[in-house]
């Protein structure tokens, strides 16, 4: 659709790099934050909304349009609630800074 397609080995390389990078990064995430981590990665993986938008660029028939539109709504729900809940959870984590003596 858009210029020459990327050879498979390049995409595989990207996949493997991302996998090793991801494993390395996630290993270092504090256990304290595993719940917000999950809501964050969930929101991020809803970047699949991009795929739905690409399909919606030139859908061949109504069914394709319908499927992709429903996918946009589902992914948008995840994006909005995912980032917002992550923010809400992260705000709850406070350090012990004299707030005690209330």
């Amino acid at each position, binding site marked *: 659709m858009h*210029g020459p397609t990327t050879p498979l080995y390049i*995409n595989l390389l*990207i*996949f493997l790099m*991302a996998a090793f990078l*991801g*494993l390395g*990064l*996630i290993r270092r995430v504090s*256990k*304290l934050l*595993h*719940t*917000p*981590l*999950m809501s*964050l*990665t*969930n*929101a*991020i*993986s*809803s*970047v*699949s909304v*991009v*795929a*739905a*938008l690409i*399909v*919606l*660029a*030139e*859908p061949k028939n109504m*069914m394709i*349009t319908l*499927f*992709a*539109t*429903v*996918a*946009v*709504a*589902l992914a*948008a*729900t995840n*994006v*909005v*609630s995912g*980032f*917002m809940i*992550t923010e809400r*959870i*992260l705000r*709850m*984590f*406070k*350090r*012990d800074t004299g*707030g005690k003596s209330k």
Partner: protein
Amino acid sequence: MTNALIGYCYVIAAVLFILSLKWMSEVQTSRRGNWAGSLGMLIAVLTTLIAYRTQHLDMIILAVAVGTLIGIPIALKLPMTAVPQRTAMSHAFGSLAVALVGTAEYYQRLPGIDTFAMAVLAAEMILGYLTFTGSTIAFLKLQEMISGKPLIYKGRNVISALVVLFAVSAAVGLVLQPNQTLLLPVLVAAALLFGFLLVMGIGGADMPTVIAILNSYAGLSAAALGFVLDNQLLIVAGTLDGASGLILAILMCKAMNRSFANVLFGGFGATSTQPGQQVTGEIKPVSVEDAYLILEGASSVVFVPGYGLAVSQAQQAVRELGEVLQKHGVEVLYGIHPVAGRMPGHMNVLLAEANVPYDELLEADAVNPKMPNTDVSVVIGANDVVNPAAREDPTSPLWGMPIIEVDKSRTVIVLKRSMRPGFAGVENPLFFKPNTRMLFGDAKASIQALIAEFSQE
């Protein structure tokens, strides 16, 4: 917009996603991480909208509006105890979205899909649809709309294997003959059924692992879609999500001393029917007053919460008791077992919500060395994660599981409603140890009574 410009915008989005996870490693930088992720998403979506001029902008706006209207109330009103359900639901939504796009892409490319694209599409659809039903069942179980007990019947693994065989055969058929559109519904139905069977067979105690595995599947199916659409941003973001779910699942399995295969195909308790050694000893119930006197004389106290704490909504009360003790010069810490909540890290969130400072929340590895020098450990609504049988009884189903070693502290006070065993259905010798005192009753009521005792001084 030129192709190159689109590409660079996607690169920026991908870098923001990576930074987002990097900043998520510590509490101090975590909120910046969340903002980086949000910004990356915004860039990715806007770039795509501008680059691929669509004939359906009105429908897209409508869909995004619907998604936003559903998403915002969930995000704002959701109680923290319900975060695991929300997570399961979002895995269901995410994987269904990916599966639907995959299906749409299949019809879009008919006739004449090349073999490679068809193979990846088939794998992506199987993964997406099975994650959808699996996550939906996980949601229903966590929401307690259906029983959390594993559905176990004779020949369960044979039936599951047959369903998988159906799905794979349909996939192979499609790869060989992509234009055989009748095979697609077979593939979809088999994948949906397999996800259903898979999670129906898993018990409530295994939910943290299941959620993590489904997280991984949802990410991997998004990455597969990236291969089909030749979209590297999707490959990167999906793979990061897949890696995250995988690591969390491994950590959860380690925390329960179980293998992946055991979680997925065993069903807790199904593989270990022997109840472990008979426990001997005497149960020593105490009154609130006695418990008060024990705590009053302590100089260090470790609270060990389990999900029972959240069930009785006692987080606030525990934090208050902790503060009262700190005012008496007692050192107060919290020992958090990885599977104390209903999903990875859940208990930390529940206590953070109750304003417990996060530097008082310690992992098992950090708190166990402190146990021999701890005067009193207070176990609230936890059972299996403090069961010394994991260390002492090789015949116990819990044998080898890392626990919080409260039995090594000088005195243990266990707050418990009754003598019912935990999820694993295993006797807990902790309750019979000479240094253990049982304070029976509702956890929240007991803790509030203890706070009242302190304020009477």
